[in-house]
């Protein structure tokens, strides 16, 4: 979607909505926020709302990286130890591979 035709207040509102939306366990919204508003926040010449947008983008980026770290750790642990966890591992799984532990 083209941000050029939007007035600055609307850009800020949009950025803010995506930032707050990401707190509902939606890290992808934060990723979208970062990618979409990156140019607006860091490349465009300064305007009044840019500072706010910059903080939102930075915080979204941080939040997204945190989520990546947590999920990567959990997925690695689960894939490695699922077989050893026996019953717990089976109840946590959606699809259990056939023929291998």
């Amino acid at each position, binding site marked *: 979607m083209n941000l050029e035709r939007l007035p600055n207040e609307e850009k800020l509102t949009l950025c803010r909505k995506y930032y707050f939306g990401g707190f509902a366990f939606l890290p992808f919204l934060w990723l979208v926020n970062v990618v979409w508003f990156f140019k607006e926040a860091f490349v465009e010449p300064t305007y009044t709302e840019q500072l706010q947008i910059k903080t939102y983008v930075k915080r979204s980026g941080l939040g997204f990286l945190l989520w990546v770290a947590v999920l990567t750790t959990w997925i690695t642990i689960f894939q490695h130890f699922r077989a050893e966890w026996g*019953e717990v591992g089976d109840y946590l799984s959606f699809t259990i591979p056939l*023929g291998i532990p």
Partner: protein
Amino acid sequence: MGLESSKWAIIFLVCWLYKNVSCNSVEQKIYVELNNTVPCVRLLNATHQIGCQSSISGDTGVIHVLESEADLEWPLSKGPNPPYMVLLESSLFTRSIMMKMKNESNRVAGVAVVVPNTSPPEFSPHTTCPNENTGVYSDNYGPNLAHCNTTVWNPRGNGLSYEEFDFPVFSLKEDNETEFIKQCYLDHNRAVNGSAPQYPLCAMQLFSHMHAVTNTPTCMRRNDINFSINPEMVCDPLGDYNVWGSIRPYNDTVFGHKENESVVIAAARLDSRAFFWEVSTGAEGSVSGFVTLLAAAQALREVTHAAPPTRNILFAFFQGETFDYIGSSRMVYDMENGKFVIDLDNIHSVLEIGQVAVHSGTNLFLHSDPVSRRNNTVNDENLVNNLQSSTAGLGFLLVEPNVSQPLPPSSLQRFLRAQPIPGIVLADHESAFNNRYYESFYDNAANLNLTYPSDLSPEEQLEFVTDTAKSLTDVATVVARALYKQAGGDESLVNTIKADPKIVTQMLYGFLVSSNNSWFQAVMAPELKNILKPSPPEYYVGVAMSSTPTRLVQYLLANLTGAATNLTQSQCQKPDELPNESRQVGVPLDLSVCRWIDVQRITMLTLGVGVAVLFTSLLVTYFISTKADVLFSSTREPASAAY
């Protein structure tokens, strides 16, 4: 006119081409399909998994025909084209070779074993101490007798059936296909003077992917958890029925202890196994025992109708005994919990027929449990005396082995686990088994020296009384007489009890040579005739609800011990008359087998549908976007942007 004739010419040409051009599939030029193969499958018990497993899309490897044990170096370390598919002759199918390949299983893609028509001198893939953890001997009961400390029952056992292999192992018959494989190896794969063979090389692909994994509790739990889109079973429990029948019938709806009822149980086992799936013939291991018991049951029919003995005699045929006594443990469980027609306290004594067909002398042996005899909790003397006195005039003796020897692996052990009961196991071996092929695919009619003159037709072979049949008939006579005496029958009638050699030889033919013969066809129910085949039945307990041997023994027991009645067919099929035999469910307690299903088609279909939906949606989006100005209203409002 010209156009029409040319049209006809084209049609004619097309039809002619269609008729004369044949399709050549490229796959047929590359692959030769092997028939007559039997895989080794995966089995689970409460704690472990045994058997073989292949990758999900099969394992491929360069063929190597093993020439000796030293030649194993080539596939395991020296060969330049791993992984290898090793083809073994039966003489090289030994524990040391298989374990070496198991340790280097990243270079071995699979093993194919060529099974010859003549048996090797000895081969037993079972363990040396069968069912050692589920018998009666343990650290609390006869600890010096447990784990075969005194007598090793199966000294030839190499334990291969209970090892776990990461690669598929298949058996091939010695026929044209195997010759083709060996010829291909000699032409292309053989290393000449130490130099590596060049590509193209012959390869083989074996596919036997097993779904089951880890152990039985895990597998049964995963059967119950069915979240995914295609819920599927990953394993099935081994299960079948036991067959039992009694001289005096019981009402099979009244369970539990019966007052003043004293029963003599005569037991035998029905099943057997082999290293490969289902090809078990169990001639000496199980057929000898249950055929003798069926013949004894038939011998007792007349005398028990004319002069019924004081105690009842119950004939029990247990399934699944190979796998930690599935059948007998179920019967004991039912008796302990009041779910069977009698109780453990109703049992007077137990006589079990073990392996009785391969004699190493003239005598047979009576095995008993030394612990309960030493403690004087049971009195086997009567049973021993009755047995020994029954051999009068038959040319062999029944001898008791050394008192300090434990019972061989037998269903009686499960009864003794529950409570002390007098019991004897009749066998042809004094200590170690005489059977050189215990629980292997070589335990067949040849192991019993069951030979027929070559000029007989199948019907004549059915009636021909072989020497094996004669010797088993004598054993059956002894068993029948001893059971009658043990049940308190009339002493003067004992010598009239004789087993019929014709029936024994017909049973041996039907169970070891061809089950599709006229006698079995006459005995079986019409709707079950299709289970009869021109080969012997398989004695693997399996996962089907009722296997061929169970059915055959059930109907034979009814035929040999029942009284013929005058009923029409429709009356006969109603179950409200007094049956002389009935069936008992033998569900295993903790053993399961893997299952493999063809899920390829389902996954391919799902993938195909998904891809089709993707492309359809892309197409629709494209069309909508190109015609957007026609489909949607043309006035644009700059302020409200769509997200």
